């Protein structure tokens, strides 16, 4: 079963534990500025929204890369950047419609979410289950369940 990251902004408190976990796993240091996942604070609305790569099937970044540095991890479906091949041309950062591939000036390569090889640290670290790693075919299951629970079986009978 392939899994996807599923993000529920309604549960996010903006604590950045996901960014801490991501940066440590990838950089060996707690450093939110190098995190592949970012939490956005829409202050005036009182909303926090975590955002990262959704691992498009026909990934713009992968198709745009002129040196084939981005490939598919067959186990997870993640699009992975090879540091050996990446030349830091940044074309992928332009190609990505969502902005989730970014250049890292301290290495001269691009960085993006690689699903940590199938155990995403951000989901493990999230204290409120705003980020979960679930069945890729059923990311809508919880939402469907909550709407289903609100469906009143009696309405039609009474009408």
């Amino acid at each position, binding site marked *: 079963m392939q899994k996807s990251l599923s993000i529920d902004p309604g549960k996010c*408190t*903006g*604590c*950045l*534990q996901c960014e*801490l*976990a991501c*940066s*440590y796993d990838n*950089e*060996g*240091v*707690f*450093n*939110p*500025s*190098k995190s592949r996942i970012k939490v956005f604070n829409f*202050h*005036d*609305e*009182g*909303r*926090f929204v975590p955002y990262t790569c959704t691992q498009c099937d026909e990934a713009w970044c992968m198709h745009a890369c002129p040196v084939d540095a981005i490939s598919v991890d067959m186990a997870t479906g993640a699009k992975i950047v090879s540091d050996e091949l990446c030349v830091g041309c940044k074309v992928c950062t332009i190609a990505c419609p969502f902005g989730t591939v970014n250049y890292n000036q*301290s290495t001269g390569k691009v960085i993006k979410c690689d699903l940590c090889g199938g155990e995403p640290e951000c989901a493990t*670290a999230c*204290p*409120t289950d705003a980020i979960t790693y679930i069945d890729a075919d059923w990311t809508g299951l919880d939402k469907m369940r909550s709407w289903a629970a609100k469906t009143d079986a009696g309405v039609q009978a009474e009408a």
Partner: protein
Amino acid sequence: MAWARQILRVDLSKGECRQEPLNMEWAMKYLGQRGLATKYLVEEIDPKVDPLSPKNKMIMTTGPLTGTCASTAGRYSVVTKGALTGAIACSNSGGFFGNEMKNAGYDMIIFEGKANKPVYLLIENDKAELIDASEFWGKSVWDTEEGIKSKHGDPLIRVASIGVSGEKGVKFACIVNDMHRAAGRSGVGTVMGSKNLKAVAIRGTKGVNVENYSKFMEASNAGKEVLAGNAVTGEGLPAMGTQVLMNVINETGALPTRNHRDIQFEGANNISAEAMAEPRESDGKPNLVTKAACFGCTIACGRISTVDRTHYTVVDRPEYQIASGGLEYEAAWALGAATGVDDLDALTFANFICNEQGFDPISFGATVGAAMDLYEEGHITDKETGGIELKFGNAKALTDLTELTGRGEGFGAEIGLGSKLLCEKYGQPELAMQVKGQEFPAYDSRGIQGMGLTYATSNRGACHLRSYTVASEVLGIPEKTDPLVTDGKAGLVKAFQDATAVYDSAGLCLFTSFAWSLDDVAPQIDAACEGDWSTENLLEVGERVWNLERQFNLAAGFTGKDDNLPKRLLKDAAKAGPAEGLTCGLDKMLPEYYEVRGWTEGGVPSNNTLERLAL
């Protein structure tokens, strides 16, 4: 590891910034943040210095855990000689600024001297420069934070700044970061204003490391599990915020009301967490929009609120019809019960203004309460207040004074003196509900006796965050003690004071201590830092820090006589509730406290004590 091992020293008089190594010998004795910065301050300034003179210094400081993934580890403190108190000041703030400072590579920023014109400090890792702040002087915290981000084209900069109140010398001005998190008490923002320093803006990308990663992850994960499973940190605080306390403390009979005339507030429920969750008539939405966490915090006690759009305070002012920092318990108490106002929207608006213009809602609300007492007793009149009818319960008077104090104008400038100077000015010093110049927070020491000793002996003036014996006396943490008796409180207060100094020196939020003991903290510090950080060693650090602060205050001119409470709490018995008929028995607790501290009868640390603590 854990420490960045580097200080930034900023000479505002000369306009120079330079890096220097952190004194690691001191770090091993004082850990970090509150403890270590106090050591630097004690070594570097004359304790008798005028807090507002250029010879006072101001230190922004992180702890060794700040910036790691330990829960709540994003704190920083501001250590200086307090403008409100003339005592040692250490004000702790959450938000995201502390982490950014650590990521830029600094354990501390030491500000000395005074800039000859308004400036702000901009830091990008190793690059630090003082920049002309004339375009931001006269602006609010909110406009300054937005303005600096926009001027430098970098939305990821974190800013800590003062508002107009801090520029104008309001004695209880704060330093506010991330729009609504504050180093709130003792007038640390007033000191910053006196130095012509408007803001500190930081972008840090270096990262923070720990000594032993696998041990640290094990210890910090265990700590997070304890927090999640605890009734206070896992349920009460996330669900209701600190406001979970409003009805609890009112029922305990310890909610100071109308300048401590009463001990229970009939309007408490209207300004409680329960009221914040209640849908309102105008738009069907509650005051509370969402909960919010500071950096790395797995508790998330922060509240984000809106004022009812039809409320008189915001109906014509769309700029305040936004979601922003909502009421915490202390602010709701000071702006509400202390003034007798039970209008939730008026309080939420007043809280917005406190954040926007950077002043402490506790000292402000309590001082308004004192002014209302002066007014009702006839010591001040409409002539002094500029026509504001300063009666208890008048919401409009409260919100008008909030805006005036934020701008340091009119009678707001007099409120900005704080209750001690205000009441002295009008010949009624006993109406000021304060210790060492700092106003009481939200617990009446007649109904919670241990808090009387806590306030009287707190090194930064009256404060609940130096030994929160409410945890034991009301909530039963770590074990239940009777709030109405004085027996055993001396030892309890000392134990809380010493442990608290450890949390404040580590980079952690004190709220974790509802669930954690130092046995939960020690493994996290020990794994992150070099050196041996057992519970025993940490407790000794806490006691050392407490005594160091005490020595500073004694050298500044305070004596045992200042470990006192206003007559109202010592002579006027509580009129109702469980504590009816009781006064605070400070005289029974204080001598025993000096004894358990190893201090003389006059409250001076004995030579033996100083030697034992290597001071």
